[in-house]
């Protein structure tokens, strides 16, 4: 065996651990999206400075909301695509509430999803924009998986209106409900040809 110091051995160990190529590419693509938004923001910032109009102020607020929503959609789409195993298995929400006792809010049954025939599989802890959230795994009648996120509204998400977008082939819907911010992610449904 080649003699090596503790430093060399530790470096060899960590050198073997790398991000998977697909994960690395996803993270790099987020950086690119951020840069595009940034340059657009500067353009409108200059226009706002020149015009000083109230109309542009409203527009700027809209941009900030779009920026935040795009960031959330990208984060949620990436988590959905990972298809991580649930930490807590339950078939109803009360079972989940008992197990996920570190949440500082109560999981809610969304009115938005009623009548869609979704079956609960379980959940795990996660975060959205750095805030603790529940990532709830659901299955619909066709067998496809959907991921529902619930987290308390904060000063940023409270300003977001309900919206739908597509990020990395994942359809993302977000809305507010009874003090919670909810996001649903599912594979994009393509129109039948």
């Amino acid at each position, binding site marked *: 065996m080649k003699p090596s*110091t*503790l430093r060399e051995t530790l*470096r060899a160990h960590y050198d073997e*651990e790398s*991000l998977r190529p697909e994960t690395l590419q996803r993270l790099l693509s987020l*950086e690119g999206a*951020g840069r595009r938004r940034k340059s657009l923001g500067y353009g409108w910032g200059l226009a706002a400075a020149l015009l000083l109009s109230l109309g542009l102020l409203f527009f700027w607020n809209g941009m900030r909301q779009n920026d935040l929503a795009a*960031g959330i959609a990208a*984060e949620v789409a990436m988590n959905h695509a990972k298809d991580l195993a649930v930490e807590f298995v339950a078939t109803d929400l009360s079972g989940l509430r008992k197990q996920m006792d570190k949440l500082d809010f109560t999981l809610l049954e969304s009115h938005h999803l009623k009548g869609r025939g979704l079956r609960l599989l379980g959940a795990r802890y996660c*975060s959205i924009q750095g805030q603790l959230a529940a990532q709830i795994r659901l299955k619909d009648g066709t067998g496809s998986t959907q991921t529902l996120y619930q987290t308390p509204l904060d000063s940023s998400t409270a300003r977001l209106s309900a919206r739908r977008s597509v990020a990395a082939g994942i359809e993302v819907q977000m809305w507010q409900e009874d003090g919670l911010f909810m996001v649903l992610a599912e594979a994009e449904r393509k129109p039948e040809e």
Partner: protein
Amino acid sequence: MSQARQPKGLEELLQRGFRFALSLTGDRQEAEDLLQDAWVAMLRSRSPRHLGYLFQVIRNRFLDLQRRRGLVSFEPIEASEDELGGLGFLDATQSRVDLATVEQALRYLRPQEREALFLAAVEGYTVKEIAELTERPLGTVSSLVQRARKKIQSRFRGDHERALP
């Protein structure tokens, strides 16, 4: 700020961020989640893509999530006299251990021990730089690295003793 070598591009920045996250979590999947979370936060704040800043964001996110889950408490550690030394032992040939032992032993270290050992041995941080990043006293940092080293070497010795006929 650290004298450690700065990454040459975003790929290297992310890979090193991932390895630091792994030193905290001890789990690949959790490390990916942690890095993603920190990366999104960095992009949102439009802060410079600096390694030290990325480490700080990763660390803060890790502590925040773990505290909320009630999984770890980062209690202060008092350093004993023999633990207040430099990091020269990392490069001493007497401290050598094999790769398989290190991989196993790292699982038994506490997150703060793995973190301090990673920063010292892999990233080349000094005790002072680790103390600044982690906001811990110098003695505590020395103690964490020394204890991590002792735990790894005791496991190495144990393996060799078990291997004897």
